[in-house]
């Protein structure tokens, strides 16, 4: 029974996609829209599975940048968030600086990265990480400071040291927040990788998009977007699965920033 319910839950999402697809197909079939403004679903599918673009190589490059960026963002984000939750002094020192770094338009920063670090997967990974780390920091800090008083009292009664308190009580309680942030971060790392590729690249799905756009090859651009969204969905799904494995007790998502 629960298997069927699980399937049904996914079905509603699929139905929405199907409805949008049908509407799109109808629009293009009924109105004389030039292909470079809105291509038909058929043209996009032909481009997606066509041999014009070596999709696998480009997808692998972008995926490497996304995964690399995400791992860095997650590790650095949790580390900084923990520092902030651990010490009010560090919190006052770090928060303004991190907000500043987060608000820098990465599109403006990327040419500087090219100058300092060159081009390729590594600099693009760094830019993706730069864009994706902030939600993790904030949510980790908030999650670690939201521990319920009851649990803290319980820990004290059993004579737990600060460190044990942290490991056994604070971190597990913070996990729903952290996982929520990781979902956001996974998506923003996708955006970050693509933005980095727009600035300088020789391979990748972002590279395919701008190349296609400049010759008004919209079917290929749409196809690249399709591949990107598949990667994004897989990343999100992976984090969600990780969440269910690590913190199955979390009923819904609690988050200090945004929830997807």
């Amino acid at each position: 029974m629960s298997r069927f319910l699980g399937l049904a839950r996914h079905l509603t999402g699929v139905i929405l996609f199907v409805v949008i697809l049908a509407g799109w197909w109808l629009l293009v079939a009924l109105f004389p829209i030039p292909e470079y403004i809105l291509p038909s679903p058929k043209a996009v599918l032909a481009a997606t599975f066509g041999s014009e673009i070596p999709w696998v190589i480009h997808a692998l490059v972008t995926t490497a940048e996304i995964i690399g960026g995400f791992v860095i963002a997650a590790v650095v984000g949790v580390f900084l968030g923990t520092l902030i939750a651990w010490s009010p002094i560090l919190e006052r020192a770090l928060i303004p600086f991190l907000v500043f770094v987060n608000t820098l338009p990465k599109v403006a920063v990327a040419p500087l990265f090219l100058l300092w670090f060159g081009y390729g997967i590594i600099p693009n990974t760094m830019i993706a990480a730069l864009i994706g780390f902030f939600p993790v920091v904030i949510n980790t800090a908030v999650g670690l400071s939201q521990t319920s008083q009851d649990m803290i009292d319980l820990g004290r009664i059993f004579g737990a040291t600060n460190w044990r308190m942290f490991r056994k009580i604070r971190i597990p309680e913070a996990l729903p927040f952290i996982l929520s942030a990781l979902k956001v971060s996974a998506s923003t790392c996708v955006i970050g990788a693509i933005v980095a590729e727009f600035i300088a690249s020789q391979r990748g799905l972002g590279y395919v998009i701008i190349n296609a756009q400049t010759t008004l090859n919209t079917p290929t651009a749409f196809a690249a977007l399709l591949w990107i969204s598949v990667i994004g969905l897989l990343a999100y799904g992976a984090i969600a699965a990780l969440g269910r494995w690590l913190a199955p007790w979390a009923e819904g998502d609690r988050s200090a920033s945004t929830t997807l």
Partner: protein
Amino acid sequence: MRHTTWIKLAGAVLAVAIGAPAFAQTPVKFALNYQVNEAHIAYWVALEKGYYKSKGLDVVIEYSKGSGDAISKADAGRADVALADAMAVVPALARGAKVKIIGMVMDKSPLNIFVWDDSPIKTPKDLEGKTLAAPPGDAQRVLFKAFAESVGVDSSKVSWLNVDPAAKVPALVGKRVDGVGTYYTDLPMFEKGMGKGKVRSMRWSDFNFDPYSISIIANEQTIRSKPDMLKAFLEASYMGWRDALANMDEAITIFKKRVPELDQPVARAAMPMVYDLLASKRYEEHGIGWIDQQKMCRTVNLVNGNMDLPRKPSCEEVYTSALLPVVKPVQSR
């Protein structure tokens, strides 16, 4: 007391009626091909000297994100007339856009590659085995294979890095690439980042590779329904070019006044290069902006042969000379 108010009112209405223009000004939206740069100076000269106004046109200039963007605007009617590279017009037509070139701007090709002055790259042949950077869809990028073939270079041995226009100069300054493909008129901008005298250019026109580039375009609907407006626009614009070419200092003063956000020293340094691309025997003979059919057909064939397009537009459908005025450059040289 009351009828003095009426007299005043009547007087005011009369004054407005007399002062009103004899004809209404037609609004014209003109989309440049990019952000404002030195190659756009003439249009502000035309605005400042009232050339557009005297022909009944109320021209508003707006910027674009590249030739592709400008072509989309013209095609969709979001701009009445636009600037675009001829080599971007051909693929746009192939993909369903309905625009035409109605006049040229540059007569000589600005296609070029910049390298450091101490670079081992001295001839096109030296490019083999090297890495160059250019924005995607950039003219140098698209036509490199054709250029390479014409000078006996194996283009498959040259690799390209896609860069955002903002990253062109950093890419070369940081020596991340061996050269950058970009218009020759960008020289002052590169010298600013690399140092005066540190930039060497490889101008493709020096190797007899000289297709058409920046041109004025409009969509077919506008050409059919408002030919007089377009003729007037072209004439006023070329009068702007005529004056700018004849008197650079005056043009630069106007430019500085009208576009204060532009990097003036860089624009000023680039001006003689822009002028060099417009000074031609063809223009002296036939008028600024004149379209040479053979050169246009060579340009179209070049693009058709080097890009993977769904169809190959014919030379005739790319342009029309029917709206061209004859505005000759000032002869005093």
